[in-house]
C-alpha cells in the first residue's frame, strides 16, 4: 500500500515537473527578475506603423471635413428657404452687388470665395455697368441682374462690362446652377425629400485626380483631360490608376475640380459614359453610377421615402447635369 502511494506521489511529481519544464521552455523570454533594477520596457512603433497610423488619421481628418461641410450646409437650409422667394434665377454668379454712386451700374461689395465671379477675376470695388449688353441703371441694379439671369442656363458664359479703377474692362463669368434647385420644385418639397448628397459612396470619395500638365500630357499621350491618380477601390466607374478622363458623357473636364463637379451631378443608378485614355488607347466605358451605401442614406432611401426616390432621381438628374 505504502509502496503504491509512494509510486503514485513520485509519478505525480515527475509529471508535474515535466509539465512545468515544458511550459517554461515554450514561454517567451522573460524580463529581468525583480531583484535586478529593470529599465521600463517601451515599445517604439516602427516607421511602417507610424505611417499607417498617420494615414488613418489623415483619412479621419478628411472624413471629418466632409462631415463638417455636409452638416454646415444642412444647417443653413432653413435660412435659405426663408429667402428662396427672392431668387428669380436658377443660376448663381457669386457676387454681392449694391447700387453704385449716381445709380449708374452696380458696385461689387463682395465676391464669393471660389464662386463663378471670383474665378472670372472679379474684385470687390468693381462697378458692373452692363450684363450681356444691357446697361444697369436705377436704384435696384441687383434685381435687374437677377431678372436678366432668369432665363440663363447653368454653365453659360455671360459678359459683363466692368469699370475698375476708372478703366473699362470686359469680364466673362460662367454662371453655375443654384444649389438645392430641387428643393424649390413645389412637388418635391411637398414630398419632404432632401436632395441626395453627391459622393455619399466611399470608394468614389476616395478617388484622386490631377489636372494634366504639358509634361504629364506628353507622357500619357494626350494634352487634354484629367489624370486618375487613384481609382475607386472597388472598381466603381471601371476606372484604373493612370487613366486619363477625356470626357464624361461628352463633357470634357478641364480640371480635377471640374471632373468632381460633373461626377457629383450624377445620382446612384444613372447611366454614365466615360471616355478615357488608357495606355495610349482611347476607350469608352459605359456603366451605372453606383448607389450610396452609407447607413443613413440607405435609411433615408428605404425607410423615409420608399417610393419617392426614383421619382426624385428622374426630376433631379437633368437639372444637376446642366448645373455641373
Amino acid at each position, binding site marked *: 500500500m505504502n509502496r503504491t502511494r509512494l509510486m503514485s506521489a513520485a509519478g505525480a511529481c515527475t509529471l508535474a515537473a515535466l509539465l512545468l519544464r515544458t511550459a517554461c521552455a515554450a514561454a517567451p523570454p522573460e524580463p529581468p527578475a525583480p531583484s535586478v533594477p529593470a529599465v521600463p520596457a517601451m515599445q517604439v512603433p516602427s516607421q511602417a506603423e507610424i505611417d499607417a497610423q498617420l494615414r488613418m488619421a489623415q483619412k479621419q481628418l478628411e472624413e471629418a471635413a466632409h462631415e463638417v461641410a455636409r452638416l454646415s450646409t444642412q444647417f443653413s437650409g432653413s435660412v435659405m428657404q426663408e429667402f428662396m422667394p427672392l431668387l428669380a434665377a436658377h443660376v448663381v454668379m457669386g*457676387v454681392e452687388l449694391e447700387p453704385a454712386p449716381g445709380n449708374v451700374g452696380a458696385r461689387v461689395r463682395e465676391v464669393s470665395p471660389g464662386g463663378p465671379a471670383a474665378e472670372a477675376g472679379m474684385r470687390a470695388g468693381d462697378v458692373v455697368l452692363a450684363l450681356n449688353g444691357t446697361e444697369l441703371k436705377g436704384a435696384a441694379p441687383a434685381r435687374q441682374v437677377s431678372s436678366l439671369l432668369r432665363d440663363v442656363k447653368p454653365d453659360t458664359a455671360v459678359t459683363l462690362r466692368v469699370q475698375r479703377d476708372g478703366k473699362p474692362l470686359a469680364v466673362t463669368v460662367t454662371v453655375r446652377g443654384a444649389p438645392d434647385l430641387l428643393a424649390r420644385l413645389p412637388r418635391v418639397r411637398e414630398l419632404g425629400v432632401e436632395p441626395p448628397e453627391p459622393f455619399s459612396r466611399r470608394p468614389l470619395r476616395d478617388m484622386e485626380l490631377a489636372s494634366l500638365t504639358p509634361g504629364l500630357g506628353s507622357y500619357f499621350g494626350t494634352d487634354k483631360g484629367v489624370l486618375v491618380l487613384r481609382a475607386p477601390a472597388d472598381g466603381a466607374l471601371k476606372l484604373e490608376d493612370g487613366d486619363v478622363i477625356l470626357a464624361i458623357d461628352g463633357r470634357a473636364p478641364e480640371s480635377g475640380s471640374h471632373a468632381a463637379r460633373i461626377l457629383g451631378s450624377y445620382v446612384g443608378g444613372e447611366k454614365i459614359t466615360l471616355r478615357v485614355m488608357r495606355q495610349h488607347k482611347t476607350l469608352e466605358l459605359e456603366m451605372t453610377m453606383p448607389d450610396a451605401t452609407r447607413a443613413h442614406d440607405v435609411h433615408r432611401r428605404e425607410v423615409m421615402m420608399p417610393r419617392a426616390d426614383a421619382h426624385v432621381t428622374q426630376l433631379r438628374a437633368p437639372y444637376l447635369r446642366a448645373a455641373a
Partner: protein
Amino acid sequence: MPDLNSSPQDLSTLLRALPADAAAPYGYQEFERRAQQRDRRARGLAGGERLATACVVAVGLLAVLVRLGAMGGVGHPPAPGVPVVRSAPGPEDETLPPHAGVAERWLASLPEEPAIVHVGTRAAVLGLEDRIAQIDDLLSTARDSGDAPARLATLRQERARLVGTLVQVRYAEVLAEGSL
C-alpha cells in the same frame, strides 16, 4: 520520456536530475507586476492611434486659430492681386465676427485647387462655395428689395458661418496635400 513505473529509488534519482530552471520562475507579486506591464503595453498600442488622430486634429485646429487670430502679421500677407475692397459697413455688418475678412484673404491666397484633387474633400469644398455664392446673390436682391437690416444681418451671419466652415475644410485639404 521517463518511465513512470520505475522504482522509487530511480524516481528520486530522476527528480534530483531535474534541471534547476524547472522551478517556479517567479511569485505572485512578480506575476502581478508583469501582468500590469503587459496591460500598459496593450493600452499604449491601442491608444497610439487615438493619440495620433487627436494630435493631427489638434494641430490642425490650432493652426487655423493661429492663422485667423494672427492674420495680417508676418507670413500671412493678403494675396497678391486680390485686394479686398469693401463699402462702409452697414448696420448688418455689426454682428459679423472680426476675423471674417481675414478668413477670406486666406482663402484668396490659396490656389484654386490642390495639385492632387481628393474627390470627396473637393466635393465638400465645391458645395460650400456654391452655397456662399448663392447667399451673396441673395444678399444683393434682398438689399434691393428693401429687406429689413435684421434679415440682411441673418443672411450675412450665415455667410460668415459658411466661410468659416470653408476655411476649415480647405485647411484639411491643404493639410492632406502637404503630407502626401
